[in-house]
């Protein structure tokens, strides 16, 4: 029996952390993720968990302390948003290259500037090549479920990589919604104890972490790190299968919503996928064959699977909630376009930028995008392959 509750996304992730009771959490507060360290430190103060909470002086320090704690053998996590993640930048790469299975609860917020506290994905997309696994959530339930799966993926011996569990700032982090929680003992049994084979605080087995590598070793080390990311593909699916057996909630690299017979698809990440699903339901009532591919796992990037899932559609709208300033689209647009090309899937694709700095994305916006896809295919309407939706013109 699951526990029916209602809580915000930040509460949900904090609750998962409480149930997991990790060893060390260094953190520095930043909106909109502040509530996570706040609630976890509350659990610590109340004696509900025995996590060592470290109040550090910056996010760079938070991630540095996380690297130290994880190397020492502790199950470690932190939480941040936006510029906090940017300040961790250097150390994100250290965590990944040292193969430390740290969990990071990321509450997506736009990067400055202009300074703004609301959601877009520019923070995590900026860190997309830092070597971290990235998993995104549509709602509070998924943020909770993803966090419970995080350590099982990160700590797998074939993986040993840090993992970022992302949710949309304010839109889910501060929204109270219904949620089904697992009992504490089920979470504990699922996540298990962290038993690293090797760790610094093991006097019987001395080791060194993060040594200088001359050119003769550096490239091989990076290849091995890349292999670990590839290995995470099957681990992510295995863990999801086990999680489904426990909860009945199924996860994969992505969720397909009415995609099977769809002529027009929207590929989207995060909370806006829920809004887009409502648009699909409305359009399906009028006989339009539309569907959603909601991407959950962005790193590793499931390019082949995405291309295969889209191969029968006439057109896809690739929705980016961040601008990459490459002068022609967002990060998802590039990666999906590349995947379609490499898999020889020849369909129309338009890259839309939406929801920057918290710009609301509505059911009407989604319908507008689908209509444009259809007009492009059926009427031959000229549609710019890269454009903004919801922009004031």
């Amino acid at each position: 029996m699951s526990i029916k509750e209602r809580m915000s996304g930040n509460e949900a992730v904090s609750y998962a952390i409480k149930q997991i009771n990790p060893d060390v959490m260094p953190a520095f507060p930043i909106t909109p993720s502040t509530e996570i360290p706040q609630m976890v430190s509350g659990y610590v103060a109340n004696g509900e968990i025995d996590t060592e909470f470290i109040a550090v002086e910056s996010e760079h320090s938070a991630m540095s302390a996380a690297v130290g704690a994880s190397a020492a053998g502790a199950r470690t996590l932190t939480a941040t948003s936006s510029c906090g993640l940017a300040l961790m930048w250097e150390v994100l790469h250290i965590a990944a290259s040292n193969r430390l299975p740290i969990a990071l609860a990321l509450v997506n917020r736009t990067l400055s500037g202009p300074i703004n506290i609301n959601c877009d994905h520019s923070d995590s997309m900026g860190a997309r090549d830092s070597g971290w696994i990235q998993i995104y959530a549509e709602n509070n339930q998924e943020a909770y479920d993803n966090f419970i799966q995080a350590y099982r993926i990160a700590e797998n011996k074939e993986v040993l990589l840090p993992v970022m569990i992302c949710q949309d700032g304010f839109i889910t982090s501060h929204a109270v919604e219904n949620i089904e929680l697992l009992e504490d003992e089920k979470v504990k049994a699922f996540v298990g104890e962290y038993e690293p084979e090797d760790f610094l605080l093991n006097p019987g087995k001395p080791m060194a972490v993060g040594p200088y590598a001359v050119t003769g070793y550096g490239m091989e080390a990076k290849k091995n790190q890349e292999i670990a990311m590839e290995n995470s593909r099957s681990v992510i699916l295995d863990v999801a299968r086990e999680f489904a057996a426990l909860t009945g909630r199924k996860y994969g690299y992505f969720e397909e919503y009415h995609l099977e017979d769809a002529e027009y698809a929207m590929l989207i990440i995060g909370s806006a996928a829920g809004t887009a699903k409502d648009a699909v339901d409305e359009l399906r009532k009028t006989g339009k064959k539309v569907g959603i591919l909601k991407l959950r796992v962005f790193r590793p990037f499931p390019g082949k699977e995405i291309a295969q899932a889209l191969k029968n559609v006439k057109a896809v709208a690739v929705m980016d909630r961040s601008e990459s300033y490459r002068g022609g689209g967002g990060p998802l647009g590039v990666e999906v376009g590349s995947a379609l090309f490499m898999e020889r899937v020849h369909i129309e694709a338009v890259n839309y930028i939406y929801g920057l700095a918290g710009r609301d994305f509505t059911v009407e916006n989604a319908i507008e995008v689908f209509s444009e896809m259809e007009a492009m295919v059926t009427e031959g309407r000229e549609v710019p392959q890269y454009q903004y939706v919801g922009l004031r013109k």
Partner: protein
Amino acid sequence: MRTDVTKITETSPYAELTEGLKIYAGGTSKKFHTGEWRTSRPIMNWEKCKQCLLCAPVCPDSSIPVADGKRGNFEMDYCKGCGICASVCPFGAIEMKEGQ
């Protein structure tokens, strides 16, 4: 993947390296003889040495052993001839000479 560090060399294929290049051994610097880098060497004049021990802590390669409050002879396997000890000695007891 706890691999014997002595079996890893610059000719090892990537699959034989450890994850994150972690080194599964302690005190591995002992295996690395920085003395081979030396182009000049320190010569002790024990008559001038007052055993003040200013030289020992500044040696970057821990080549000046200290026991019972007294420094001993240089460990030439590790002394790379940098001359810092000679510079800090207040009594001119260490002189640097060209050559291995």
